[in-house]
């Protein structure tokens, strides 16, 4: 008998590539005194009133399961929020589900809609989990690249070229991780037209929507005819600095949310109760702290953008999220080589763009969700590194 237990692993799981982020994490973890711009989460601690509300719920003994779809009170607040912020109306009773992070919302949305072999279009560079989540749900991820020349904005023609008879859905992330690119209404409309024409569904990952710096953020579901074709995915991780709480949500057409709730019910039961009570408080009173954090991210974005320009690295202007995606092509290094050498020589961790898909090659993702003190030092070090490489 073979002792290699890997023979038990399902093929579609075995075929998943380990995340490039993971590899970089392992490398950076072995080193000390590293300034990390590799972190995809806020540097703030969750606003105190949210933490306090969660304590309070525990003191009151709210330690049992909630409804599968989440506390009705929380779903109502989510619905009210989506209505007031993005003018999209959802019924709390059957159109909103509270999930374990936006991550789980993406997972159950894909599992709810995909038949084996269905294709899902992914716009790269993008969040590392999309392609694997599609594969795990039995689907086939199809990548569409975007280019710096277009500020990493999805071009409708390129989207059109990748649609086939098997295409069922497209995952859009606005503002985007890792580029920070934000699409305006005018840029979304032709995409919506194609989606309508080809009868597709959209998973709209709007987890960074509250962290958009330019006015007029447009939720995909609010576009003409898109309401019935959109599963809006969001959560508390980024805007409320609640990554560790594992709380997100999805809103969409009732039939789809109900199908997702079925999967959720049999696999998770419900999202953590104390986190849900924290989220209730976040939505009730958190907008001031979100504004405060956003202001600080915007100032830091401005700072790093000029810093990269000063060192001669071309960069796009991030419209949202807390990432900047400068080009490192001038150095002649691949993004992996650049990130690795920078880490070893200057102890600054960034994430190689290739991790986010083929079109991310030649770029690095720098998160500016780090103190100004750290950012200032990091920019000094990167500049030194780049100057050495440019000679």
């Amino acid at each position, binding site marked *: 008998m073979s002792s290699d237990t890997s023979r038990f692993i399902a093929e579609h799981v075995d075929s998943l590539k380990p995340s490039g982020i993971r590899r970089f994490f392992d490398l950076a*973890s072995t080193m000390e005194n590293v300034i990390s711009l*590799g*972190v995809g989460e806020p540097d703030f601690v969750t606003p105190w009133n949210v933490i306090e509300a969660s304590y309070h719920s525990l003191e009151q003994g709210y330690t049992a399961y909630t409804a599968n779809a989440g506390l009705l009170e929380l779903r109502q607040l989510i619905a009210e929020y989506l209505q007031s912020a993005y003018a999209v109306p959802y019924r709390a009773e059957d159109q909103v589900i509270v999930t374990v992070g936006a991550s789980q919302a993406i997972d159950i949305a894909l599992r709810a809609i995909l038949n084996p072999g269905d294709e899902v279009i992914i716009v790269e560079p993008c969040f590392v989990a999309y392609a694997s989540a599609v594969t795990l749900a039995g689907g086939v991820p199809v990548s569409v690249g975007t280019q710096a020349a277009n500020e990493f904005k999805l071009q409708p023609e390129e989207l059109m070229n990748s649609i086939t008879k098997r295409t069922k859905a497209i995952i859009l992330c606005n503002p985007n991780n890792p580029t920070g690119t934000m699409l305006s209404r005018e840029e979304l409309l032709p995409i919506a037209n194609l989606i309508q024409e080809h009868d597709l569904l959209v998973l709209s990952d709007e987890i960074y929507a509250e962290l958009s710096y330019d006015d007029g953020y447009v939720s995909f579901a609010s576009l003409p005819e898109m309401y019935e074709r959109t599963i809006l995915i969001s959560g508390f991780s980024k805007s409320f600095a609640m990554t560790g709480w594992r709380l997100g949500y999805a809103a969409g057409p009732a039939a789809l949310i109900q199908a997702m709730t079925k999967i959720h019910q049999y696999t998770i039961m419900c999202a953590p109760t104390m986190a849900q009570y924290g989220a209730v408080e976040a939505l009730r009173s958190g907008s001031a702290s979100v504004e405060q954090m956003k202001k600080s991210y915007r*100032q830091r974005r*401005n700072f790093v953008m000029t810093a990269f320009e000063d060192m001669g690295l071309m960069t796009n202007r991030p419209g949202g999220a807390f990432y900047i995606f400068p080009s490192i092509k001038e150095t002649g290094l691949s993004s992996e080589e650049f990130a690795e050498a920078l880490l070893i020589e200057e102890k600054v961790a960034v994430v190689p763009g290739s991790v986010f898909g083929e079109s991310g090659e030649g770029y690095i993702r720098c998160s500016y969700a780090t103190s100004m003190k750290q950012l200032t030092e990091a920019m000094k070090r990167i500049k030194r590194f780049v100057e050495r490489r440019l000679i």
Partner: protein
Amino acid sequence: MKVDKKEIEILELLEKNGRMDVHTIAQMVELSPEEVEQAIQKFEDQQIIHGYSTLIDWTEVLGYEGVTAMIDVKVTPVRGKGFNDVAERIYRFPEVKAVYLMSGAYDLSVSVEGKTMSQVARFVSEKLSTLDTVISTTTHFILKKYKHDGIIFGEDDNNDRRMPVSP
């Protein structure tokens, strides 16, 4: 004085860190260094910025002695004089670090610093309570400062608990 949004940002940044340099501020608020310089000059001229101070936790400085007391002061309102005159007579003393006019049970809140408790006590009994409009004083010594001017004392700035790389 009317200030715009970016000017308010400059003030907020300086309030948090009076040593932040003009170039960094300029980058953060998307203005030129000259514009930031001018704005700061204007704030100083118009006494919107009154000075630049440093927040020091003296309890961490070995060998330093000092105590602070908050004193509730009740005064007799004097016809035609109001509180300003009494306040001035009080805030001119170098021992006095802050004076506020309060609503509620007493009139003035006075913060006094001294080397020792008895020095502060002497100031209160000999200087403050003997002013002719002062009716009564209640002295509270500060035992420990947890938070001052929005800064939590003893909080470590380098307590980033995040993993070095995450999605």
